[in-house]
């Protein structure tokens, strides 16, 4: 339970990164499968060579941003489809990660890591969970703050309405690259911490990570809502924890660990399909009834206007 909570809080950083690309930039970025491992590999190789673990984790962030930069350049300057650009970087990173690690696996047992330091200070009980809660919240607040700065608003608008923000003198190419760099930096950092938590870095640890990120974002936001940015990021963090607890629960119930990836995929599919299903919509509408009449009225006018405009434009 405690391990699941800890992992969930670390994966919350992945989820925040995926939130930046998938929700804010509206860009499903598959680079994370590679950059997660790159972060883990970088931190691991630095740690076993005696570098301070915090510095090593910082280096993992930087390596992650570089991976994001490559995907961003391929997509914006190279006009390569976003999905394909991410896949290309991800595949390329596989070889690079092997080069960084010099093999398929680096054990970190007995090394001084951020997690071993955490254990020294806080033990392995609820105190360490609280420390990780604080860490996850720091990243959440940092993202909240960034998204409300002038640069962050331009990033949000880039995902929302590209034509509009370009007409206000913002380079959407640059904003996408910044978003991808930030996102993959966070993912790389999370990879570094996960490696230190599990005691090794492994070439396969990033496989399917995008699903973990998406599941956290989609499940969290379906439960906790997305009306405000601060609400959405909180939902993402909680989503990551819930996802990890669900996995733990499934494993305890006797599910084969090899089936976990299939379970993740089914979970994301369910989260994407359920809202389209009529019965679910009725349920959601009933839940919405409690909301203020003003907002409901505003939404009604919106749909009406959208219909009108649709007719006139066509």
């Amino acid at each position, binding site marked *: 339970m405690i391990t699941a909570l800890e992992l969930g809080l670390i994966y919350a950083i992945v989820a925040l990164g995926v939130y930046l690309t998938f929700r804010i930039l509206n860009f499903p970025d598959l680079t994370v499968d590679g950059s997660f491992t790159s972060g883990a590999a970088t931190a691991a190789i630095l740690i076993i060579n005696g570098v301070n673990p915090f510095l090593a984790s910082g280096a993992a962030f930087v390596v992650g941003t570089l991976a994001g930069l490559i995907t961003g350049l391929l997509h914006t300057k190279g006009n390569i489809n976003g999905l394909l650009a991410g896949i290309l970087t991800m595949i390329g990173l596989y070889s690079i990660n092997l080069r960084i690690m010099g093999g398929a696996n680096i054990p970190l047992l007995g090394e001084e890591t951020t997690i071993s330091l955490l254990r020294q200070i806080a033990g392995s009980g609820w105190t360490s969970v609280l420390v990780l809660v604080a860490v996850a919240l720091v990243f959440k607040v940092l993202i909240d703050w960034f998204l409300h700065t002038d640069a962050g*608003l331009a990033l949000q*608008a880039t995902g929302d309405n590209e034509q509009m*923000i370009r007409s206000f*003198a*913002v*380079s959407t190419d640059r904003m996408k690259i910044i978003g991808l760099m930030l996102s993959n930096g966070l993912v790389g950092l999370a990879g570094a911490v996960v490696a230190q938590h599990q005691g090794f870095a492994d070439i396969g640890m990033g496989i399917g990570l995008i699903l973990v990120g998406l599941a956290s974002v989609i499940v969290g936001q379906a439960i906790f809502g997305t009306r405000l940015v601060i609400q959405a990021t909180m939902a993402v963090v909680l989503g990551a924890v819930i996802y990890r607890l669900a996995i733990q629960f499934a494993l305890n119930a006797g599910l084969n660990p090899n089936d976990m990836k299939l379970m993740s995929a089914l979970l994301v599919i369910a989260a994407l399909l359920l809202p389209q299903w009529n019965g679910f919509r009725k349920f959601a509408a009933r839940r919405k009834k409690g909301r203020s009449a003003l907002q409901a009225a505003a939404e009604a*006018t919106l749909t009406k206007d959208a219909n009108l405009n649709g007719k006139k*434009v066509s």
Partner: protein
Amino acid sequence: MLNVTDVYKTFFPGTVNERKALVNVNLTLAPGDFVTVIGSNGAGKSTVLNTVAGRISQDEGVVSLDGRDVSKLKEHQRAAQVGRVFQDPMAGTSPNLTIEENLSLADKRGQARGLGFGVTRAKRERFAEALTVLELGLESRLKTKVGLLSGGQRQALSLLMATFSQPKILLLDEHTAALDPQRAELVTRLTRKVVEEQGLTTLMVTHNMAQALEVGNRLIMMHEGRIILDVSEEEKSKLAPGDLLAEFAKIKGAALDDKTMLQ
């Protein structure tokens, strides 16, 4: 202020779909000029606007703003000096951001966007005051997401945003065409007001000939990528929509019904 010199643009050159969108277009706007552009579908009106904005790059010719050649600049680089309002009311604002956040984006046109807060108390007051001009009560709904506004409200907000940081050129691409008559009237009135107050150099495309004659101090008519008529303020005041049709028929030497023009 704006000089378009010998501009040519052909879409899909060398194919069966080849279309000459602009043919030797020359257009000069003095500071403060408010020019309305009319013409049938495919006449090249929007292409002229998009060429000025940098969304389309011309095959030949030069576009210069305020004496500076901007032909090589990208759309977002030119946008530092060019404000735009689009036909689609959904196009000019960011639906998932609030009214105040949208205004903050508009406020920063042409400036570096750093890590300061996008909306501060001082800015909020300034935004609220600017919104009162629209007379839509939006100043009391600063934290409402723009996606919840009606098309007319959005278009009025788009206009305010496009002119908020006083661009050198304002480009209006049939910005009242998708609105109901009442809202269209409101947006037209706001357009005249803001252009007059700020002395903006404006290029406005419209399908509505009455509107084209009513607003602005100059009118040009386009056909098949060429400017075929350029009417000064003085002549314009004497014209009626029917005269424009007759003028068009005379120039093209062909009869033309209202429907083609008004499409």
